[in-house]
Protein backbone atom coordinates (compact mmCIF):
# COMPACT_ATOMS: atom_id res chain seq x y z
CA UNK A 1 0.00 0.00 0.00
CA UNK A 2 1.52 3.27 -1.02
CA UNK A 3 0.38 5.09 2.10
CA UNK A 4 2.47 2.82 4.28
CA UNK A 5 5.69 3.81 2.61
CA UNK A 6 5.55 7.53 3.20
CA UNK A 7 7.92 9.85 4.99
CA UNK A 8 9.99 8.39 7.81
CA UNK A 9 8.61 8.91 11.28
CA UNK A 10 11.44 11.12 12.41
CA UNK A 11 14.00 13.22 10.65
CA UNK A 12 16.74 15.34 12.04
CA UNK A 13 16.55 18.99 11.19
CA UNK A 14 19.61 20.69 9.84
CA UNK A 15 19.68 23.28 12.61
CA UNK A 16 19.31 21.20 15.75
CA UNK A 17 20.13 17.75 16.94
CA UNK A 18 16.67 17.34 18.43
CA UNK A 19 14.68 14.87 16.34
CA UNK A 20 11.60 16.37 14.77
CA UNK A 21 8.44 14.35 14.66
CA UNK A 22 6.85 13.93 11.26
CA UNK A 23 3.61 12.82 9.67
CA UNK A 24 1.27 10.66 11.66
CA UNK A 25 3.71 10.38 14.56
CA UNK A 26 3.68 14.15 14.94
CA UNK A 27 -0.12 14.21 14.93
CA UNK A 28 -0.46 11.46 17.54
CA UNK A 29 2.17 13.00 19.79
CA UNK A 30 0.70 16.48 19.43
CA UNK A 31 -2.82 15.29 20.19
CA UNK A 32 -1.90 13.30 23.28
CA UNK A 33 1.21 15.16 24.39
CA UNK A 34 -0.33 16.36 27.66
CA UNK A 35 -1.16 12.79 28.68
CA UNK A 36 2.19 11.44 27.47
CA UNK A 37 4.24 14.11 29.22
CA UNK A 38 2.24 13.61 32.41
CA UNK A 39 2.99 9.89 32.32
CA UNK A 40 6.67 10.41 31.60
CA UNK A 41 7.00 13.20 34.18
CA UNK A 42 5.26 11.20 36.90
CA UNK A 43 7.47 8.23 36.01
CA UNK A 44 10.61 10.32 36.41
CA UNK A 45 9.44 11.65 39.78
CA UNK A 46 8.48 8.25 41.11
CA UNK A 47 11.66 6.61 39.82
CA UNK A 48 13.75 9.35 41.46
CA UNK A 49 11.95 8.81 44.76
CA UNK A 50 12.47 5.05 44.52
CA UNK A 51 16.19 5.46 43.88
CA UNK A 52 16.44 7.92 46.77
CA UNK A 53 14.79 5.48 49.19
CA UNK A 54 16.97 2.68 47.83
CA UNK A 55 20.07 4.75 48.55
CA UNK A 56 18.87 5.44 52.10
CA UNK A 57 18.21 1.77 52.71
CA UNK A 58 21.55 0.62 51.34
CA UNK A 59 23.35 3.27 53.40
CA UNK A 60 21.68 2.00 56.54
CA UNK A 61 22.40 -1.63 55.73
CA UNK A 62 26.02 -0.81 54.96
CA UNK A 63 26.43 1.00 58.27
CA UNK A 64 25.03 -2.01 60.11
CA UNK A 65 27.51 -4.39 58.56
CA UNK A 66 25.26 -5.90 55.92
CA UNK A 67 25.67 -8.17 53.99
CA UNK A 68 27.92 -9.77 56.58
CA UNK A 69 25.06 -9.72 59.04
CA UNK A 70 21.53 -10.94 58.53
CA UNK A 71 18.90 -8.23 58.15
CA UNK A 72 16.67 -10.05 60.66
CA UNK A 73 19.16 -9.09 63.34
CA UNK A 74 18.52 -5.37 62.90
CA UNK A 75 15.02 -5.72 64.35
CA UNK A 76 13.01 -2.52 64.65
CA UNK A 77 15.87 -0.32 63.47
CA UNK A 78 15.16 -1.62 59.98
CA UNK A 79 11.40 -1.20 60.29
CA UNK A 80 11.12 2.34 58.83
CA UNK A 81 13.06 1.16 55.79
CA UNK A 82 10.74 -1.79 55.35
CA UNK A 83 7.69 0.42 55.83
CA UNK A 84 8.89 2.77 53.07
CA UNK A 85 7.95 0.13 50.50
CA UNK A 86 4.24 0.41 51.37
CA UNK A 87 3.15 3.69 49.79
CA UNK A 88 5.40 3.20 46.75
CA UNK A 89 3.99 -0.23 45.99
CA UNK A 90 0.48 1.18 46.35
CA UNK A 91 1.32 3.85 43.77
CA UNK A 92 2.93 1.30 41.44
CA UNK A 93 -0.07 -1.00 41.80
CA UNK A 94 -2.40 1.73 40.62
CA UNK A 95 -0.45 2.40 37.42
CA UNK A 96 -2.23 -0.18 35.21
CA UNK A 97 -5.63 1.16 36.29
CA UNK A 98 -4.66 4.83 35.95
CA UNK A 99 -3.06 4.44 32.53
CA UNK A 100 -5.91 2.26 31.29
CA UNK A 101 -8.51 4.81 32.31
CA UNK A 102 -6.70 8.05 31.42
CA UNK A 103 -4.53 7.02 28.47
CA UNK A 104 -6.15 3.91 26.98
CA UNK A 105 -9.86 4.67 27.12
CA UNK A 106 -9.78 8.19 25.60
CA UNK A 107 -7.24 7.29 22.91
CA UNK A 108 -9.81 6.50 20.21
CA UNK A 109 -13.05 7.32 22.03
CA UNK A 110 -12.19 11.04 22.03
CA UNK A 111 -11.66 11.12 18.27
CA UNK A 112 -14.80 9.12 17.62
CA UNK A 113 -16.88 11.30 19.94
CA UNK A 114 -15.67 14.65 18.59
CA UNK A 115 -15.57 13.71 14.91
CA UNK A 116 -11.82 14.22 14.58
CA UNK A 117 -11.54 10.58 13.50
CA UNK A 118 -13.36 11.70 10.35
CA UNK A 119 -10.96 14.62 9.96
CA UNK A 120 -7.99 12.26 9.98
CA UNK A 121 -9.74 9.67 7.83
CA UNK A 122 -10.27 12.22 5.05
CA UNK A 123 -6.60 13.14 4.78
CA UNK A 124 -4.32 11.16 2.48
CA UNK A 125 -3.09 8.58 5.00
CA UNK A 126 -4.85 5.30 5.64
CA UNK A 127 -6.81 4.70 8.82
CA UNK A 128 -4.83 1.55 9.49
CA UNK A 129 -1.70 3.67 9.64
CA UNK A 130 -3.39 6.10 12.00
CA UNK A 131 -4.46 3.28 14.30
CA UNK A 132 -1.05 1.65 14.15
CA UNK A 133 0.71 4.92 14.98
CA UNK A 134 -1.64 5.68 17.86
CA UNK A 135 -1.15 2.23 19.35
CA UNK A 136 2.58 2.26 18.66
CA UNK A 137 3.33 5.63 20.26
CA UNK A 138 1.10 4.87 23.24
CA UNK A 139 2.68 1.45 23.74
CA UNK A 140 6.11 3.05 23.56
CA UNK A 141 5.26 5.55 26.28
CA UNK A 142 3.67 2.87 28.46
CA UNK A 143 6.62 0.50 28.04
CA UNK A 144 9.18 3.25 28.68
CA UNK A 145 7.38 4.26 31.85
CA UNK A 146 6.77 0.80 33.26
CA UNK A 147 10.21 -0.60 32.38
CA UNK A 148 11.85 2.37 34.12
CA UNK A 149 9.77 1.87 37.25
CA UNK A 150 10.17 -1.89 37.22
CA UNK A 151 13.96 -1.63 36.99
CA UNK A 152 14.14 1.11 39.62
CA UNK A 153 11.89 -0.72 42.03
CA UNK A 154 13.64 -4.02 41.39
CA UNK A 155 16.96 -2.45 42.35
CA UNK A 156 15.43 -1.24 45.61
CA UNK A 157 13.66 -4.41 46.64
CA UNK A 158 16.25 -6.83 45.19
CA UNK A 159 18.66 -6.78 48.17
CA UNK A 160 15.85 -7.57 50.64
CA UNK A 161 13.65 -9.78 48.48
CA UNK A 162 14.26 -12.83 50.69
CA UNK A 163 13.05 -10.93 53.77
CA UNK A 164 9.52 -12.13 54.29
CA UNK A 165 8.91 -9.34 56.82
CA UNK A 166 9.60 -6.69 54.16
CA UNK A 167 7.35 -8.11 51.47
CA UNK A 168 6.11 -11.54 50.51
CA UNK A 169 7.34 -12.17 46.96
CA UNK A 170 4.09 -13.85 45.88
CA UNK A 171 2.00 -10.82 46.83
CA UNK A 172 0.90 -8.13 44.36
CA UNK A 173 3.09 -5.34 45.77
CA UNK A 174 6.25 -7.19 44.85
CA UNK A 175 5.27 -9.70 42.16
CA UNK A 176 3.35 -7.16 40.05
CA UNK A 177 5.89 -4.34 40.35
CA UNK A 178 9.09 -6.06 39.28
CA UNK A 179 10.37 -7.83 36.21
CA UNK A 180 8.14 -7.96 33.13
CA UNK A 181 4.85 -8.10 35.04
CA UNK A 182 4.12 -4.35 35.43
CA UNK A 183 4.91 -3.82 31.74
CA UNK A 184 2.60 -6.58 30.52
CA UNK A 185 -0.14 -5.83 33.03
CA UNK A 186 -0.20 -2.14 32.09
CA UNK A 187 -0.02 -2.79 28.35
CA UNK A 188 -2.93 -5.21 28.55
CA UNK A 189 -5.07 -2.82 30.59
CA UNK A 190 -4.27 0.14 28.31
CA UNK A 191 -4.94 -1.74 25.07
CA UNK A 192 -8.12 -3.12 26.65
CA UNK A 193 -9.14 0.47 27.43
CA UNK A 194 -8.46 1.47 23.82
CA UNK A 195 -10.69 -1.36 22.59
CA UNK A 196 -13.45 -0.39 25.03
CA UNK A 197 -13.22 3.19 23.74
CA UNK A 198 -13.40 2.03 20.14
CA UNK A 199 -16.56 0.04 20.81
CA UNK A 200 -18.32 2.56 23.08
CA UNK A 201 -17.25 5.68 21.12
CA UNK A 202 -17.82 7.89 24.19
CA UNK A 203 -14.91 9.08 26.31
CA UNK A 204 -16.59 9.18 29.70
CA UNK A 205 -18.43 5.88 29.28
CA UNK A 206 -15.22 4.28 28.04
CA UNK A 207 -13.29 5.54 31.07
CA UNK A 208 -15.89 4.22 33.50
CA UNK A 209 -16.05 0.80 31.84
CA UNK A 210 -12.27 0.66 31.54
CA UNK A 211 -11.99 1.33 35.27
CA UNK A 212 -14.20 -1.68 35.91
CA UNK A 213 -12.21 -3.73 33.42
CA UNK A 214 -8.89 -2.73 34.99
CA UNK A 215 -10.07 -3.60 38.49
CA UNK A 216 -11.35 -6.94 37.20
CA UNK A 217 -7.99 -7.64 35.54
CA UNK A 218 -6.23 -6.91 38.84
CA UNK A 219 -8.59 -9.21 40.70
CA UNK A 220 -8.34 -12.12 38.27
CA UNK A 221 -4.59 -11.69 38.04
CA UNK A 222 -4.33 -11.78 41.83
CA UNK A 223 -6.28 -15.03 41.88
CA UNK A 224 -4.17 -16.63 39.15
CA UNK A 225 -0.75 -15.47 40.33
CA UNK A 226 0.09 -18.58 42.39
CA UNK A 227 -1.11 -20.91 39.65
CA UNK A 228 1.85 -19.75 37.53
CA UNK A 229 4.27 -21.62 39.78
CA UNK A 230 5.30 -25.25 39.87
CA UNK A 231 4.36 -26.37 43.39
CA UNK A 232 7.13 -28.18 45.22
CA UNK A 233 6.12 -30.82 47.78
CA UNK A 234 8.41 -31.87 50.58
CA UNK A 235 7.64 -34.82 52.89
CA UNK A 236 9.12 -36.02 56.16
CA UNK A 237 8.92 -39.32 57.96
CA UNK A 238 9.97 -38.30 61.47
CA UNK A 239 6.54 -38.06 63.01
CA UNK A 240 4.75 -34.78 63.60
CA UNK A 241 5.07 -34.06 67.29
CA UNK A 242 8.79 -33.72 67.92
CA UNK A 243 10.95 -30.59 67.78
CA UNK A 244 12.48 -30.89 64.30
CA UNK A 245 9.80 -32.88 62.56
CA UNK A 246 8.53 -30.04 60.34
CA UNK A 247 10.50 -29.83 57.06
CA UNK A 248 12.86 -26.92 56.57
CA UNK A 249 11.77 -24.78 53.65
CA UNK A 250 14.21 -22.60 51.72
CA UNK A 251 14.39 -18.90 52.70
CA UNK A 252 11.41 -16.83 51.57
CA UNK A 253 9.57 -19.89 50.29
CA UNK A 254 5.83 -19.37 50.06
CA UNK A 255 4.03 -22.17 51.86
CA UNK A 256 0.80 -23.10 50.13
CA UNK A 257 -0.44 -26.08 52.10
CA UNK A 258 0.57 -28.49 54.84
CA UNK A 259 -0.88 -31.83 55.85
CA UNK A 260 -0.08 -35.08 57.63
CA UNK A 261 1.35 -37.95 55.65
CA UNK A 262 0.21 -41.46 56.47
CA UNK A 263 2.10 -44.69 56.08
CA UNK A 264 0.07 -45.55 52.99
CA UNK A 265 1.06 -42.23 51.39
CA UNK A 266 -2.29 -40.57 51.93
CA UNK A 267 -2.60 -36.97 53.10
CA UNK A 268 -4.86 -36.05 55.97
CA UNK A 269 -5.60 -32.71 57.55
CA UNK A 270 -3.14 -31.43 60.14
CA UNK A 271 -6.02 -30.84 62.56
CA UNK A 272 -6.40 -34.58 62.96
CA UNK A 273 -6.29 -35.53 66.65
CA UNK A 274 -5.84 -31.90 67.67
CA UNK A 275 -8.73 -32.16 70.11
CA UNK A 276 -7.27 -34.93 72.22
CA UNK A 277 -6.86 -33.68 75.77
CA UNK A 278 -3.52 -35.24 76.69
CA UNK A 279 -0.24 -35.71 74.88
CA UNK A 280 -0.48 -39.47 75.23
CA UNK A 281 -4.00 -39.62 73.83
CA UNK A 282 -2.90 -37.51 70.89
CA UNK A 283 0.09 -39.74 70.20
CA UNK A 284 -2.17 -42.78 70.29
CA UNK A 285 -4.69 -41.12 68.03
CA UNK A 286 -1.99 -40.23 65.49
CA UNK A 287 -0.62 -43.74 65.63
CA UNK A 288 -4.07 -45.15 64.93
CA UNK A 289 -4.37 -42.81 61.99
CA UNK A 290 -0.96 -44.06 60.80
CA UNK A 291 0.55 -40.57 60.61
CA UNK A 292 4.24 -40.82 59.81
CA UNK A 293 5.21 -37.25 58.96
CA UNK A 294 4.50 -33.97 57.21
CA UNK A 295 3.75 -33.14 53.61
CA UNK A 296 4.22 -29.46 52.74
CA UNK A 297 3.49 -27.70 49.43
CA UNK A 298 5.43 -24.51 48.70
CA UNK A 299 6.78 -22.22 46.01
CA UNK A 300 10.46 -21.35 46.31
CA UNK A 301 11.68 -17.82 45.62
CA UNK A 302 13.80 -19.21 42.79
CA UNK A 303 10.61 -19.68 40.77
CA UNK A 304 9.66 -16.02 40.92
CA UNK A 305 11.37 -14.91 37.70
CA UNK A 306 9.98 -17.86 35.74
CA UNK A 307 6.48 -17.24 37.05
CA UNK A 308 6.72 -13.56 36.17
CA UNK A 309 7.79 -14.26 32.60
CA UNK A 310 5.11 -16.93 32.15
CA UNK A 311 2.44 -14.55 33.44
CA UNK A 312 3.77 -11.70 31.32
CA UNK A 313 3.74 -13.94 28.24
CA UNK A 314 0.08 -14.80 28.87
CA UNK A 315 -0.80 -11.11 29.29
CA UNK A 316 1.12 -10.12 26.17
CA UNK A 317 -0.63 -12.84 24.17
CA UNK A 318 -3.96 -11.44 25.35
CA UNK A 319 -2.75 -7.94 24.44
CA UNK A 320 -1.87 -9.16 20.96
CA UNK A 321 -5.35 -10.68 20.61
CA UNK A 322 -7.00 -7.39 21.63
CA UNK A 323 -4.75 -5.52 19.19
CA UNK A 324 -5.85 -7.83 16.38
CA UNK A 325 -9.44 -7.10 17.33
CA UNK A 326 -8.71 -3.36 17.23
CA UNK A 327 -7.46 -3.59 13.65
CA UNK A 328 -10.33 -5.82 12.52
CA UNK A 329 -13.02 -3.67 14.12
CA UNK A 330 -11.20 -0.43 13.32
CA UNK A 331 -11.11 -1.12 9.60
CA UNK A 332 -14.88 -0.69 9.49
CA UNK A 333 -15.73 1.54 12.42
CA UNK A 334 -12.92 4.01 12.80
CA UNK A 335 -14.78 7.15 11.74
Amino acid sequence: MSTLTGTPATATTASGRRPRLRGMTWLVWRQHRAAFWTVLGATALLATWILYRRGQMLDFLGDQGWPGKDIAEFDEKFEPYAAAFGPVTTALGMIPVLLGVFVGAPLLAGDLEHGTARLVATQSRSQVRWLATKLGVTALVVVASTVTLSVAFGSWWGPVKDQINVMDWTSGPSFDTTGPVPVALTLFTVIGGVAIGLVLRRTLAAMVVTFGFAVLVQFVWGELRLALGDVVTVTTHKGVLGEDTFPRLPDAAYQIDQSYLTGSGELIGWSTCVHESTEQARELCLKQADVVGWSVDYLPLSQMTGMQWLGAAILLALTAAVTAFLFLWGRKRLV
Partner: protein
Amino acid sequence: MSDGTYAGGPALEAVGLGKRYRRGWALRDCSFRLPAGRICGLVGPNGAGKTTLLGIAAHVLEPTEGTLSVFGAAPGSAEAGRRTAFLAQDKPLYRTFTVAETLRLGRELNPGWDQRAAEGIVRAGNVPLDARIATLSGGQRTRVAFALAFGKRPDLLLLDEPMSDLDPVVRHELMGTLMAEAAERGSTVLMSTHVLAELESVCDYLVVVAQGGVRLAGDVDELLYAHTRVSGARNGEGVPADLAHHTVVESRTGGRQFSALIRAEGPLAGPWDTDSPTMEELLLAYLRSTGAPPLITPTAEVRTGTQAVAA
Protein backbone atom coordinates in the same frame (compact mmCIF):
# COMPACT_ATOMS: atom_id res chain seq x y z
CA MET B 1 -2.03 12.69 -12.14
CA SER B 2 -3.85 15.50 -10.39
CA ASP B 3 -3.98 18.12 -13.10
CA GLY B 4 -7.74 18.02 -12.89
CA THR B 5 -8.24 17.42 -16.59
CA TYR B 6 -9.54 13.94 -16.12
CA ALA B 7 -10.44 12.71 -19.53
CA GLY B 8 -13.03 10.06 -20.14
CA GLY B 9 -14.60 9.13 -16.83
CA PRO B 10 -16.74 11.10 -14.44
CA ALA B 11 -15.43 12.60 -11.22
CA LEU B 12 -18.05 10.74 -9.26
CA GLU B 13 -20.44 7.99 -10.18
CA ALA B 14 -23.09 6.41 -7.98
CA VAL B 15 -24.93 3.26 -9.08
CA GLY B 16 -27.92 2.02 -7.14
CA LEU B 17 -26.40 3.48 -4.01
CA GLY B 18 -28.24 2.89 -0.72
CA LYS B 19 -27.49 3.22 2.95
CA ARG B 20 -29.61 1.80 5.74
CA TYR B 21 -29.26 2.78 9.35
CA ARG B 22 -30.99 1.13 12.26
CA ARG B 23 -33.94 3.48 11.81
CA GLY B 24 -34.37 2.78 8.12
CA TRP B 25 -33.06 3.83 4.75
CA ALA B 26 -31.25 7.17 4.64
CA LEU B 27 -30.49 6.90 0.95
CA ARG B 28 -31.88 4.55 -1.59
CA ASP B 29 -31.53 3.74 -5.24
CA CYS B 30 -29.27 6.68 -5.92
CA SER B 31 -27.74 6.67 -9.39
CA PHE B 32 -26.07 9.57 -11.15
CA ARG B 33 -22.73 10.67 -12.50
CA LEU B 34 -20.95 13.94 -12.03
CA PRO B 35 -18.64 14.90 -14.89
CA ALA B 36 -15.21 16.20 -13.92
CA GLY B 37 -14.72 19.93 -13.62
CA ARG B 38 -18.26 20.83 -12.63
CA ILE B 39 -19.49 22.67 -9.59
CA CYS B 40 -22.48 20.70 -8.49
CA GLY B 41 -25.14 21.60 -5.97
CA LEU B 42 -26.62 18.73 -3.99
CA VAL B 43 -30.12 19.63 -2.89
CA GLY B 44 -32.82 17.80 -1.03
CA PRO B 45 -35.11 18.02 1.97
CA ASN B 46 -33.80 17.24 5.44
CA GLY B 47 -33.19 13.53 5.79
CA ALA B 48 -32.98 12.93 2.06
CA GLY B 49 -29.51 11.46 2.45
CA LYS B 50 -27.28 14.30 1.26
CA THR B 51 -24.86 13.94 4.15
CA THR B 52 -24.94 10.16 3.73
CA LEU B 53 -24.08 10.46 0.04
CA LEU B 54 -21.17 12.81 0.74
CA GLY B 55 -20.01 10.58 3.60
CA ILE B 56 -19.90 7.56 1.33
CA ALA B 57 -17.93 9.51 -1.28
CA ALA B 58 -15.49 10.64 1.43
CA HIS B 59 -15.21 7.08 2.75
CA VAL B 60 -16.39 7.86 6.23
CA LEU B 61 -19.47 5.68 5.61
CA GLU B 62 -19.90 2.32 3.92
CA PRO B 63 -22.87 1.90 1.59
CA THR B 64 -25.37 -0.85 2.35
CA GLU B 65 -25.96 -1.49 -1.32
CA GLY B 66 -24.77 -0.24 -4.68
CA THR B 67 -21.43 1.30 -5.52
CA LEU B 68 -19.84 4.69 -5.72
CA SER B 69 -16.59 5.52 -7.43
CA VAL B 70 -14.40 8.59 -7.34
CA PHE B 71 -12.42 9.06 -10.57
CA GLY B 72 -13.06 5.38 -11.19
CA ALA B 73 -11.56 4.31 -7.87
CA ALA B 74 -13.26 3.04 -4.73
CA PRO B 75 -13.62 5.69 -2.01
CA GLY B 76 -11.39 3.74 0.38
CA SER B 77 -8.47 3.50 -2.04
CA ALA B 78 -5.31 5.53 -1.62
CA GLU B 79 -5.94 7.12 -5.01
CA ALA B 80 -9.42 8.35 -4.13
CA GLY B 81 -8.29 9.40 -0.65
CA ARG B 82 -5.53 11.58 -2.06
CA ARG B 83 -7.73 13.23 -4.69
CA THR B 84 -10.74 13.92 -2.49
CA ALA B 85 -11.21 16.47 0.26
CA PHE B 86 -14.22 16.48 2.55
CA LEU B 87 -15.60 19.28 4.64
CA ALA B 88 -18.06 17.71 7.06
CA GLN B 89 -21.09 19.59 8.30
CA ASP B 90 -19.86 19.80 11.90
CA LYS B 91 -16.35 20.79 10.72
CA PRO B 92 -14.42 18.64 13.19
CA LEU B 93 -11.04 20.07 14.22
CA TYR B 94 -8.73 19.41 17.14
CA ARG B 95 -9.79 21.99 19.71
CA THR B 96 -6.48 22.15 21.51
CA PHE B 97 -4.48 22.71 18.32
CA THR B 98 -3.57 26.19 17.16
CA VAL B 99 -4.53 27.29 13.66
CA ALA B 100 -0.92 26.82 12.55
CA GLU B 101 -0.87 23.30 14.01
CA THR B 102 -4.13 22.50 12.24
CA LEU B 103 -2.57 23.51 8.95
CA ARG B 104 0.50 21.48 9.87
CA LEU B 105 -1.80 18.50 10.26
CA GLY B 106 -2.78 18.98 6.64
CA ARG B 107 0.85 19.36 5.62
CA GLU B 108 2.00 16.26 7.49
CA LEU B 109 -0.74 14.01 6.21
CA ASN B 110 -1.09 15.10 2.57
CA PRO B 111 1.64 14.74 -0.03
CA GLY B 112 0.37 17.52 -2.32
CA TRP B 113 -0.22 20.08 0.42
CA ASP B 114 -0.35 23.74 -0.60
CA GLN B 115 0.64 25.74 2.48
CA ARG B 116 0.42 29.07 0.68
CA ALA B 117 -3.19 28.52 -0.42
CA ALA B 118 -4.22 27.30 3.02
CA GLU B 119 -2.55 30.17 4.84
CA GLY B 120 -4.02 32.62 2.37
CA ILE B 121 -7.55 31.51 3.19
CA VAL B 122 -6.88 31.79 6.92
CA ARG B 123 -5.20 35.19 6.65
CA ALA B 124 -7.99 36.58 4.50
CA GLY B 125 -10.26 36.18 7.50
CA ASN B 126 -7.74 37.73 9.89
CA VAL B 127 -7.63 34.52 11.90
CA PRO B 128 -4.42 34.58 13.96
CA LEU B 129 -2.26 31.56 13.24
CA ASP B 130 -1.32 31.10 16.89
CA ALA B 131 -4.91 31.10 18.16
CA ARG B 132 -6.28 27.86 19.55
CA ILE B 133 -9.18 26.34 17.62
CA ALA B 134 -11.31 26.29 20.79
CA THR B 135 -11.10 30.09 21.05
CA LEU B 136 -12.29 30.76 17.49
CA SER B 137 -15.81 31.75 16.51
CA GLY B 138 -17.92 29.36 14.47
CA GLY B 139 -17.24 31.26 11.27
CA GLN B 140 -13.50 31.38 11.88
CA ARG B 141 -13.48 27.67 12.55
CA THR B 142 -15.31 27.05 9.28
CA ARG B 143 -12.66 29.12 7.54
CA VAL B 144 -9.87 27.01 9.02
CA ALA B 145 -11.71 23.84 8.02
CA PHE B 146 -12.03 25.29 4.52
CA ALA B 147 -8.31 26.04 4.44
CA LEU B 148 -7.58 22.46 5.47
CA ALA B 149 -9.78 21.13 2.67
CA PHE B 150 -8.35 23.51 0.05
CA GLY B 151 -4.74 23.02 1.11
CA LYS B 152 -5.04 19.39 0.12
CA ARG B 153 -5.42 20.53 -3.50
CA PRO B 154 -8.17 18.02 -4.18
CA ASP B 155 -9.53 17.10 -7.57
CA LEU B 156 -12.90 16.50 -5.96
CA LEU B 157 -14.06 18.69 -3.12
CA LEU B 158 -17.00 17.40 -1.09
CA LEU B 159 -18.67 20.09 0.99
CA ASP B 160 -21.53 19.35 3.37
CA GLU B 161 -23.50 22.51 4.18
CA PRO B 162 -20.30 24.51 3.98
CA MET B 163 -21.73 27.97 4.52
CA SER B 164 -24.36 27.35 7.17
CA ASP B 165 -22.63 29.30 9.92
CA LEU B 166 -21.06 32.13 7.95
CA ASP B 167 -22.25 35.70 7.65
CA PRO B 168 -23.20 36.85 4.13
CA VAL B 169 -19.98 38.76 3.52
CA VAL B 170 -17.73 35.87 4.47
CA ARG B 171 -19.96 33.48 2.62
CA HIS B 172 -19.59 35.56 -0.52
CA GLU B 173 -15.84 35.79 -0.12
CA LEU B 174 -15.33 32.07 0.52
CA MET B 175 -17.57 31.19 -2.40
CA GLY B 176 -15.42 33.45 -4.54
CA THR B 177 -12.31 31.62 -3.33
CA LEU B 178 -13.98 28.31 -4.04
CA MET B 179 -14.92 29.34 -7.57
CA ALA B 180 -11.46 30.74 -8.33
CA GLU B 181 -9.69 27.65 -7.01
CA ALA B 182 -11.99 25.29 -8.83
CA ALA B 183 -11.69 27.20 -12.07
CA GLU B 184 -7.92 27.47 -11.86
CA ARG B 185 -7.36 23.80 -11.11
CA GLY B 186 -10.34 22.37 -12.90
CA SER B 187 -11.47 20.72 -9.67
CA THR B 188 -14.86 19.19 -9.28
CA VAL B 189 -17.03 20.36 -6.39
CA LEU B 190 -20.02 18.56 -4.91
CA MET B 191 -21.71 20.78 -2.36
CA SER B 192 -24.86 20.20 -0.37
CA THR B 193 -26.76 23.27 0.68
CA HIS B 194 -30.08 24.62 1.83
CA VAL B 195 -29.38 28.09 0.55
CA LEU B 196 -30.92 27.98 -2.90
CA ALA B 197 -29.76 31.47 -3.83
CA GLU B 198 -26.20 30.35 -3.25
CA LEU B 199 -26.59 27.68 -5.88
CA GLU B 200 -27.75 29.95 -8.62
CA SER B 201 -24.59 32.04 -8.59
CA VAL B 202 -22.13 29.20 -8.05
CA CYS B 203 -23.29 25.91 -9.47
CA ASP B 204 -23.38 24.79 -13.06
CA TYR B 205 -24.58 21.30 -12.19
CA LEU B 206 -27.33 20.05 -9.98
CA VAL B 207 -28.38 16.86 -8.23
CA VAL B 208 -31.64 16.77 -6.31
CA VAL B 209 -32.19 13.82 -4.00
CA ALA B 210 -35.42 13.08 -2.18
CA GLN B 211 -37.20 10.03 -0.85
CA GLY B 212 -36.83 7.31 -3.42
CA GLY B 213 -33.63 8.48 -5.04
CA VAL B 214 -32.46 11.09 -7.51
CA ARG B 215 -35.19 13.46 -8.65
CA LEU B 216 -33.18 15.73 -10.86
CA ALA B 217 -29.63 15.56 -12.12
CA GLY B 218 -27.77 17.36 -14.84
CA ASP B 219 -26.44 20.53 -16.30
CA VAL B 220 -28.21 23.57 -14.86
CA ASP B 221 -28.77 25.11 -18.30
CA GLU B 222 -30.17 21.87 -19.67
CA LEU B 223 -32.44 21.42 -16.70
CA LEU B 224 -33.76 24.95 -16.94
CA TYR B 225 -34.22 24.63 -20.68
CA ALA B 226 -36.26 21.48 -20.25
CA HIS B 227 -38.78 23.19 -18.03
CA THR B 228 -41.34 25.87 -18.72
CA ARG B 229 -43.36 27.93 -16.38
CA VAL B 230 -46.89 28.43 -17.68
CA SER B 231 -49.62 30.62 -16.32
CA GLY B 232 -53.03 31.68 -17.42
CA ALA B 233 -56.66 32.05 -16.49
CA ARG B 234 -58.12 29.24 -14.44
CA ASN B 235 -60.99 27.25 -15.83
CA GLY B 236 -62.21 24.32 -13.79
CA GLU B 237 -60.54 22.05 -11.29
CA GLY B 238 -57.22 20.25 -11.74
CA VAL B 239 -54.78 20.41 -14.58
CA PRO B 240 -56.24 21.78 -17.81
CA ALA B 241 -56.65 19.26 -20.63
CA ASP B 242 -54.28 20.96 -23.05
CA LEU B 243 -51.41 20.51 -20.57
CA ALA B 244 -52.19 16.88 -19.88
CA HIS B 245 -49.74 15.39 -22.40
CA HIS B 246 -46.86 17.32 -20.88
CA THR B 247 -45.19 16.34 -17.65
CA VAL B 248 -46.57 18.61 -14.97
CA VAL B 249 -44.10 18.91 -12.14
CA GLU B 250 -46.15 21.20 -10.00
CA SER B 251 -49.32 23.18 -10.46
CA ARG B 252 -51.08 25.68 -8.27
CA THR B 253 -54.17 27.78 -8.42
CA GLY B 254 -54.52 31.15 -6.82
CA GLY B 255 -57.81 32.93 -7.23
CA ARG B 256 -58.61 32.92 -10.95
CA GLN B 257 -55.02 32.28 -11.86
CA PHE B 258 -53.54 28.91 -12.77
CA SER B 259 -49.81 28.38 -12.93
CA ALA B 260 -47.64 25.32 -13.38
CA LEU B 261 -44.13 24.16 -13.96
CA ILE B 262 -44.04 21.67 -16.78
CA ARG B 263 -41.64 19.64 -18.81
CA ALA B 264 -42.85 20.32 -22.33
CA GLU B 265 -43.05 17.10 -24.35
CA GLY B 266 -43.89 18.95 -27.55
CA PRO B 267 -45.26 22.25 -28.75
CA LEU B 268 -47.38 24.02 -26.23
CA ALA B 269 -50.92 24.77 -27.31
CA GLY B 270 -53.40 27.05 -25.64
CA PRO B 271 -53.62 30.55 -24.28
CA TRP B 272 -50.68 30.24 -21.93
CA ASP B 273 -48.09 32.74 -20.87
CA THR B 274 -44.80 30.88 -20.91
CA ASP B 275 -41.64 31.76 -19.14
CA SER B 276 -38.31 30.24 -18.21
CA PRO B 277 -38.14 29.26 -14.54
CA THR B 278 -35.32 30.38 -12.29
CA MET B 279 -33.24 27.72 -10.65
CA GLU B 280 -34.87 28.46 -7.33
CA GLU B 281 -38.34 27.98 -8.77
CA LEU B 282 -37.29 24.76 -10.40
CA LEU B 283 -35.81 23.40 -7.17
CA LEU B 284 -38.76 24.43 -5.06
CA ALA B 285 -41.16 22.78 -7.47
CA TYR B 286 -39.27 19.49 -7.33
CA LEU B 287 -38.78 19.63 -3.58
CA ARG B 288 -42.49 20.30 -2.99
CA SER B 289 -43.96 17.77 -5.37
CA THR B 290 -42.40 14.46 -4.52
CA GLY B 291 -44.55 12.62 -7.06
CA ALA B 292 -43.07 14.31 -10.11
CA PRO B 293 -41.16 11.93 -12.38
CA PRO B 294 -37.39 12.29 -12.14
CA LEU B 295 -35.31 13.93 -14.85
CA ILE B 296 -31.73 12.86 -15.37
CA THR B 297 -30.05 14.52 -18.33
CA PRO B 298 -27.69 12.45 -20.52
CA THR B 299 -24.48 13.80 -18.96
CA ALA B 300 -25.66 12.71 -15.52
CA GLU B 301 -27.01 9.37 -16.61
CA VAL B 302 -25.28 6.21 -15.47
CA ARG B 303 -24.59 3.69 -18.18
CA THR B 304 -23.47 0.33 -16.93
CA GLY B 305 -22.73 -1.84 -19.91
CA THR B 306 -25.88 -2.45 -21.90
CA GLN B 307 -28.26 -1.60 -19.14
CA ALA B 308 -29.23 1.92 -18.21
CA VAL B 309 -29.77 2.04 -14.50
CA ALA B 310 -31.26 5.47 -14.11
CA ALA B 311 -34.62 5.79 -15.79
